[in-house]
């Protein structure tokens, strides 16, 4: 886009936004981002002396040289609030010790080009924002340099920048960004600012402390559940016991309830029904919980099937015998071979899983006709706002939507149904008073939107040197795409490639491949969970490759190496993991398993060392991960992400299971939906073997393979294949 002289500040800001992202040409900076009034169109005032300069959508520079970087991505624990500012601060040449972060408003300026929205998901934050953040920083740096050059009457070429200073070495003078901000604001924003050579990076690639770490260590971070406004009431919802529908569509409906008993609890304010269930409103959580316990709701059973896990397993197992929708076909003969003799085949079964973030869902909503403000921790603020607007009959821009740090999420707060904001809006529409709609832990674990249960059948024939000549994979699973209302599109196949993630993109060199999927239309609402379909598909795949290696009489590591010769990055992480773990030479009575995974532009290999004792059962000793994500923005946070994924995944693989009986989840809290604890957590080592280039995603990377590596280690220890999760169904785990 061409620039013209004499643009007004409003227009300049628009140009800046473009320079900062190249993705926002159609929308103006002010439209949604400013202080939001009822019309949502307040423009920020021009800067006055002594005021901070809002340089573009992303940066504020204060006269005292403090720099605030606005982060559009959600902070759900992954460290976006540190890594995103690092990318911008790098090109800005900011003094990192003076940089702080702020959650951005909900506005199109902050969309991630990978998700076309403020959806923080798919391990796309770093990959999607790497160039836009760097361009935004470089553009502002160029304006600051230009301002200094004009002030001093020198050429820009002789100036350099470092630690928030423009420095004129020849003139032996410098000026801070804060001093220059006012003049810089008058300069034109370059549309295509020069970016640094990665070799010159001073911030990117360095281990930095989290910008939110101290607050999270002293309890001062305000999560959604901590947020307070005057006269705030607390609401809980009695939802149908069987999560088999969506907010009034297909679920059981409340037939009767004991309003008097609930209202008798001191502090109770109101009881009423909405589509989501029966709402109890009270002065505080404790009263609301006491009130809800006395409601005694009688539910009218809907006509939808109330499925049970055992019955579902039987159906899925039957479907494994039938050809599904073919999603990938490579070479020829896979099908014929797989009907013949010498076929190796194994079925793997995976249960429903709950995300169970430590902070249960909650939404604070202050609604009166024509006015609404919402505070919640979410991965999808713009999508949530759209749904709230629909429920309340408002325009999205009329709702001021504040995204707060989330106490974990793992996909639960990225719901295409936007369930928790939808129902909070339903409550607010009736109540028309400030209210915090809270979920208890039981509400969370029993509330549906699970990682779907799945069954996978892998079959192969072995050819020369024991390597697979053909491999067929079939998955039976509820459609995640269908969950966002695309059932018909899903039936065309393309969209359903999501179900085959990790199978249809097989990294191994197998000449003949066939992948097909059955989408089961069970009524249980399902949702992506950290690593999505790879969570089951890659687990099955990596266990099965191990089975093939064993059938071929080969070492599982060498077997993979033979099949990955065309995948140099994967081969490199595999070798690095093997070297670090001391593959082939575990301590006495310990056994190793290995697995690999590639996605989001990143690669990982993981080795698990475990022992299995008849009396004390399974014990984890060590997990080694080797990662190539191209470029690490903050290597220590990257390592933390892998450590997190290892524990998250092992929790699922060892313990995680939501069982349904007559549609009702049988688990409800951490005693029957356990997760790894300190004493069960092994030593975790993570090595980076980054190959350079643009950064890939890492938030989900460490999840799918580690469980398979564990299952393979258990086989090495016991000679027994466990093909059904969680492992504790078959193994003692203390």
């Amino acid at each position, binding site marked *: 886009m061409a620039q013209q002289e004499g643009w007004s500040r409003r227009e300049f800001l628009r140009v800046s936004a473009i320079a900062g992202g190249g993705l926002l040409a159609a929308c103006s900076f002010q439209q949604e981002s400013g202080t939001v009034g009822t019309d949502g169109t307040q423009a920020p005032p021009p800067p006055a002396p002594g005021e901070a300069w809002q340089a573009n959508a992303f940066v504020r520079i204060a006269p005292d040289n403090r720099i605030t970087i606005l982060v559009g991505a959600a902070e759900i624990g992954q460290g976006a609030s540190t890594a995103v500012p690092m990318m911008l601060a790098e090109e800005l040449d900011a003094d990192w010790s003076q940089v702080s972060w702020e959650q951005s408003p909900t506005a199109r300026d902050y969309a991630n080009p990978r998700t076309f929205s403020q959806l923080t998901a798919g391990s796309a934050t770093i990959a999607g924002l790497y160039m836009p953040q760097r361009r935004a920083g470089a553009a502002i740096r160029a304006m600051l340099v230009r301002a200094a050059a004009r002030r001093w009457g020198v050429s820009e070429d002789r100036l350099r920048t470092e630690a928030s200073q423009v420095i004129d070495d020849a003139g032996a003078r410098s000026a801070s960004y804060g001093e220059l901000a006012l003049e810089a604001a008058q300069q034109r924003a370059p549309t295509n600012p020069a970016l640094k050579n990665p070799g010159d990076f001073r911030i990117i690639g360095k281990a930095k402390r989290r910008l939110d770490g101290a607050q*999270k260590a002293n309890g001062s971070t305000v999560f959604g559940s901590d947020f307070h406004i005057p006269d705030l009431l607390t609401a809980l919802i009695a939802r149908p016991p069987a999560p088999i529908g969506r907010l009034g569509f297909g679920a059981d409906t409340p037939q009767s309830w004991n309003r008097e008993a609930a209202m008798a609890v001191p502090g109770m304010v109101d009881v009423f029904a909405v589509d989501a269930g029966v709402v109890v409103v009270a002065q505080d*959580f404790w009263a609301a919980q006491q009130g809800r316990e006395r409601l005694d709701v009688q539910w009218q059973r809907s006509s939808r099937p109330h499925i049970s896990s055992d019955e579902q397993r039987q159906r899925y197992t039957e479907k494994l015998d039938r050809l599904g929708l073919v999603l990938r076909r490579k070479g020829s003969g896979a099908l014929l071979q797989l009907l013949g003799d010498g076929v190796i085949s194994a079925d793997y079964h995976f249960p429903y899983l709950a995300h169970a973030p430590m902070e249960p869902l909650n939404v604070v909503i202050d609604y009166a006709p024509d006015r609404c403000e919402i505070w919640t921790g979410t991965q999808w603020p713009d999508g949530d706002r759209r749904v709230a607007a629909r429920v309340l009959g408002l325009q999205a821009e009329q709702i001021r939507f504040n995204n707060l740090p989330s106490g974990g999420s793992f996909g639960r707060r990225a719901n295409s149904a936007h369930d928790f904001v939808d129902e909070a809006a339903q409550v607010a529409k009736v109540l028309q008073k400030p209210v915090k709609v809270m979920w208890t*832990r039981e509400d969370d674990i029993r509330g549906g939107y699970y990682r779907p249960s799945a069954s996978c059948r892998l079959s192969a024939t072995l050819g020369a040197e024991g390597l697979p000549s053909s491999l067929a994979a079939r998955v039976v699973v509820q459609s995640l795409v269908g969950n966002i209302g695309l059932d018909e599109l899903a039936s065309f196949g393309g969209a359903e490639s999501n179900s085959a993630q990790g199978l249809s993109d097989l990294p191994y060199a197998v000449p003949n491949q066939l992948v097909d999927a059955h989408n089961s239309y069970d009524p249980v609402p399902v949702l992506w969970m950290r690593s999505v379909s790879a969570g089951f598909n890659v687990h099955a795949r990596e266990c099965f490759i191990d089975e093939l290696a064993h059938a071929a009489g080969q070492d599982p590591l060498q077997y993979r190496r033979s099949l990955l010769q065309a995948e140099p990055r994967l081969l490199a992480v595999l070798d690095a993991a093997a070297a670090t773990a001391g593959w082939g030479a575990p301590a006495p009575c310990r056994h190793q398993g290995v697995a690999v995974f590639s996605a989001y532009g990143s690669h990982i290999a993981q080795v698990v060392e475990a022992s299995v004792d008849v009396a004390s059962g399974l014990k984890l000793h060590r997990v080694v991960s080797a990662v190539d994500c191209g470029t690490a923005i903050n290597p220590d946070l990257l390592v933390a992400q892998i450590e997190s994924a290892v524990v998250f995944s092992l929790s699922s693989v060892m313990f995680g299971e939501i069982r349904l009986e007559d549609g009702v989840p049988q688990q409800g809290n951490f005693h029957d939906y356990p997760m790894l604890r300190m004493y069960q957590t092994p030593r975790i080592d993570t090595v980076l073997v980054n190959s350079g280039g643009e950064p890939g995603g890492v938030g989900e990377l460490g999840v799918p393979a580690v469980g398979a590596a564990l299952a393979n280690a258990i086989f090495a220890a016991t000679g027994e294949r466990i093909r059904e999760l969680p492992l504790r169904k078959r193994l003692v785990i203390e």
Partner: protein
Amino acid sequence: MYTLSINGTARAVEAVADKPLLWVLRDDLRLTGTKYGCGRALCGACTVHVDGQPTRACVLPAGTLGEREVTTIEGIGASEIGRRVQQAWAEMNVPQCGYCQSGQVMAATALLTRIPHPTDRDIDEALSGNLCRCGMYTRIRAAIHRVAGEL
């Protein structure tokens, strides 16, 4: 109406006697650093100190506390060990989402106060009641050892 001693200050509370300390802290006193995670003493997110002992506030009726001294995450930084624990947490990038970390810091501070140089086994015993869904256990362990090294 009763009085609680919170972080060295007497606080008047108007709440039913069986209301758990967690909700008195959060809803009545607006001390929201102490978190709700399970409501059944299963996760440790609500850990506070009662007379120095790590205690689950979500199942502790506040009306039974009497004169006992309650310390929360908002007050623990006033102690030398608490301050060092919080500092190590920030320096070693222990928190991810951070929601469980108030409880982790309280449990770690109680451990280091009782045993200044804990073994891994001591850490297992003292911290295994505190869940971290982000899985930062190895960092919590390393940070405790670092603080111990300074004591």
